[in-house]
């Protein structure tokens, strides 16, 4: 994307006014998407974003500038702006010699979406629409979306690091509205992986559409969710967002360093029930949060955050790690070249236990079974977090009974982690997610086995 000699020149300029660290992050990203709604393919969209972000660190201050101009002139102008923003006071020149490394993710993309005819992508939309509507007359509206993107990044910094990577992601989602006597309900199914068009060898779009339609239809008969505390069983693959919110964000070193995490100072302590092991793993092949290198050029890692209930480590980016004199854990990510990186999750999951999932439900006299969670949100300083249930049922006398309408559940991270009293042997990854932090969205994955939390507050309206 950019010549090595140009990068070395630009980094030299960035360091000239006393910078202690400088970095060029360049990105060339192509997006394609197609939407079918209300029976019509509304449009195909193609997009391209290309540019570079340059940061310069002086002491505790980071200067940052970005440009869409990848010529030497454009990059030098951005480097000067970033250096000025960092208010470096020193002088002299700084020679940077880059050492090119290769990024590897251990598998190949089989079919680049850019090589697939647009007509084939559009055909998938129509098939899913037909399949969803065929489920029943109560399906009153269907929206189907397809998306792919190819993101080529380059990272070069004043430590000599120089690495490029090429990432392909493909996504497909179906949303249905069902209309009944008591109003409308919605159902959604989405799949996304860090792979190419071979996504559709792994999934049958007709089946995805039927799943979305069934979810909406099921909820037509749903009763209001209960209000108050009771045991909650989370289904395999449906609820990784619980850990993303309950502890994931609180284990991001930037928040910890500012005292904005309830997990500050708790490394080595028992923060979760025994048997609970939580991992953040950017190397997980083909998953939505997979990365070969992070957006600071560091290789993705498998990081154990909580092991058998004991907090083992936080997640780190370059700046936080540098400050603590340790290595980054490969969690420095950013939405695009227009943003500064920060500590972010990749694929966050809870390892399986040994229990039979059916026996977990059978041993719950009264509670809620959440088959699919929606999004969530956490206040890392207090640990309070919420997450939505998009498909949930009552558990009565150890059996799954009536479907429930949507609502949020609320809990406190450190308390909920200690209340996990059953772990199934049926681990599965969940649907693709987008994690938001400080206005930046990045793709993340999550996964859980069937598990039970002995008590959570369910935010419904029924007594």
């Amino acid at each position, binding site marked *: 994307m950019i010549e090595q000699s140009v990068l070395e020149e630009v980094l030299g300029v960035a360091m000239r006014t006393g910078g202690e660290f400088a970095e060029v992050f360049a990105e060339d990203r192509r997006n394609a998407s197609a939407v*079918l709604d209300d029976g*019509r393919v509304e449009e195909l969209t193609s997009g391209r974003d290309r540019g570079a972000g340059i940061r310069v660190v002086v002491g505790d201050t980071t200067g940052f500038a970005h440009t869409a101009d990848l010529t030497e002139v454009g990059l030098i102008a951005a480097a000067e*702006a970033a250096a000025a923003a960092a*208010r470096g006071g020193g002088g002299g020149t700084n020679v940077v010699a880059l050492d090119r490394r290769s990024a590897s993710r251990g598998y190949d993309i089989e079919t680049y979406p850019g090589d697939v005819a647009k007509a084939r992508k559009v055909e998938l939309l129509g098939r899913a629409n037909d399949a969803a509507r065929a489920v029943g007359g109560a399906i009153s509206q269907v929206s189907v979306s397809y998306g792919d993107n190819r993101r080529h990044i380059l990272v070069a910094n004043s430590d000599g690091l120089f690495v490029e990577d090429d990432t392909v992601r493909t996504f497909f989602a179906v949303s249905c509205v069902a209309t009944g006597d008591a109003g409308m309900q919605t159902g959604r199914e989405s799949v996304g992986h860090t792979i190419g068009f071979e996504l559709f060898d792994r999934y049958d779009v007709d089946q995805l559409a039927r799943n979305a339609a069934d979810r909406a239809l099921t909820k037509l008969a749903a009763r209001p969710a209960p209000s108050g505390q009771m045991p909650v069983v989370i289904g395999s693959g449906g609820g990784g967002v619980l850990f993303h919110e309950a502890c994931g964000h609180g284990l991001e070193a930037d928040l910890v360093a500012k005292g904005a995490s309830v997990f500050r100072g708790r490394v080595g302590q028992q923060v979760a029930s025994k048997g609970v092991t939580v991992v953040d793993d950017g190397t997980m092949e083909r998953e939505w949060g997979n990365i070969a290198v992070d957006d600071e050029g560091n290789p993705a890692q498998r990081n154990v955050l909580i092991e058998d209930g004991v907090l083992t480590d936080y997640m780190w980016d370059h700046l936080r790690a540098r400050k603590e004199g340790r290595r980054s854990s490969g969690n420095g990510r950013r939405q695009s070249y*227009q943003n500064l990186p920060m500590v972010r999750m990749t694929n966050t999951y809870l390892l399986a236990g040994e229990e039979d999932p059916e026996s977990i439900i059978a041993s719950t006299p009264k509670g809620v079974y959440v088959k699919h969670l929606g999004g969530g949100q956490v206040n890392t*300083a207090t640990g309070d977090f919420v997450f939505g249930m998009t498909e949930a049922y009552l558990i009565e006398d150890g059996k799954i009974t009536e479907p429930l309408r949507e609502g949020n559940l609320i809990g406190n991270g450190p308390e909920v982690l200690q209340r996990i009293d059953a772990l199934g042997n049926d681990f599965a990854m969940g649907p693709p997610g987008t994690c938001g932090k400080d206005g930046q969205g990045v793709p993340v994955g999550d996964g859980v086995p069937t598990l039970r939390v002995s008590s959570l*507050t*369910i*935010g419904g*309206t029924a007594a």
Partner: protein
Amino acid sequence: MSEDLLAIADRVVAMAKPGEQIEAVVVRGTETEIRVFEGDVESLSSAQSQGVGIRIVVDGRQGFAYAGSLDESAIAETLADARDNVSFATFDEFAGLAEPDGVAIPVLDLHGDALVSFATADKIAMAIELERVVMAADPRISGIESAEYADSISEAAIASSTGIRTAGSETSCFLATYAMATEGDETQTGFGFSVGREPSDLTPSAAAIEAAERATRMLGAVQPASGRLTVVLDPWVTAQFLGILGYTLDGESVLKGRSLFADRLGESVGSSLLTLIDDPTDVRSFTATDADGEGLAARRNVLIENGVLQKFVHNAYSARRAGTVSTGNAVRGFKSTPSVGCLSVSLVPGISDPAALIAGIDDGVLVQEVSGLHSGVNPVSGDFSTGAEGLRIRNGELAEPVREFTIASTLQKMLRDVQAVGNDLQFLPMNATGVSLVVADLTVSGS
């Protein structure tokens, strides 16, 4: 100032082939963001970005492409992509670009000249002052999660082969901070902000004191008992609720069978105290604008009047399909085709100040923050459930802080259960304006 952008848009439109409708949206933004921590700059980002979005309609089919660049080669590639994409869309007799509707673009002063010349050092000083006042506000303030100054100068031009041609420039700036208060093992948070078009509109001390007060007053918070209570939504919370309500009044949702108010025009849908307007021409609003995303004049629309549903909002496409005219509510960035949405939604304020509203409640809760709106509110079904924190209200006075609970109802029921609208309009960095709102009979789920 944005004439060069309009010239680019004109050039794209001039490339229309016979039978093609072409629309070009060209934008440029200059942004500064300064974060401070412990009296020093933590990060300073300063950048200019630009982009172009090209929409083409041929014989009832629409294609679109964008690029984050204004290079001639990028524009040529984008135009070719948009053209290529046209053939894959389904024929739609209503497809087409907006056409001039004779409504004059209002003359609004949205450009704060003083922002353009405001020195970076002064921006830094303002952010440092924000943090300093937070830290000094109360001995229990233990730190800040963030303290920032941000501003932007946004320019946009839209031109089309159907005769749309408009350009404008808007400035905005804000200060925002998250404060932390600590007592023993317990930490609570609170935020404060100040928004404006130029730096003289900003008040760091007010934002700082609000953040400190919101954090400290939550110390000692307990989980409340479950029950049905009257709830006062503070302006920040009301604004988020109005943003969701706006979705249900979007003409495209109505046409596509996704609005719970689809067949209710002219009917009472809420308390007679409710008058909801969408008015992007109110320059006090952060999202005020003179033109919508298709270049039609922005205008004031009354959506609900004294509880009666009056109007849905439309862009050119949804209006054509619904057999009506655009209300000037096309919403978009350069990376997408126009959707429909409210631009700046607000309730007409009532007469009571927040203290008077609280004084009228024997047993209730003031909600100062909600979480999980995206996961617990379904604007299609109307099911509403969010995480919340705030203060109990007992015998007309604020009492103990409460946290880790949810409030739940349905959008339909909440509109009917509105008991009072406050007089405390608050302009926020979002497309909805805040005001205190009293809603009866919400389900509080706690212990």
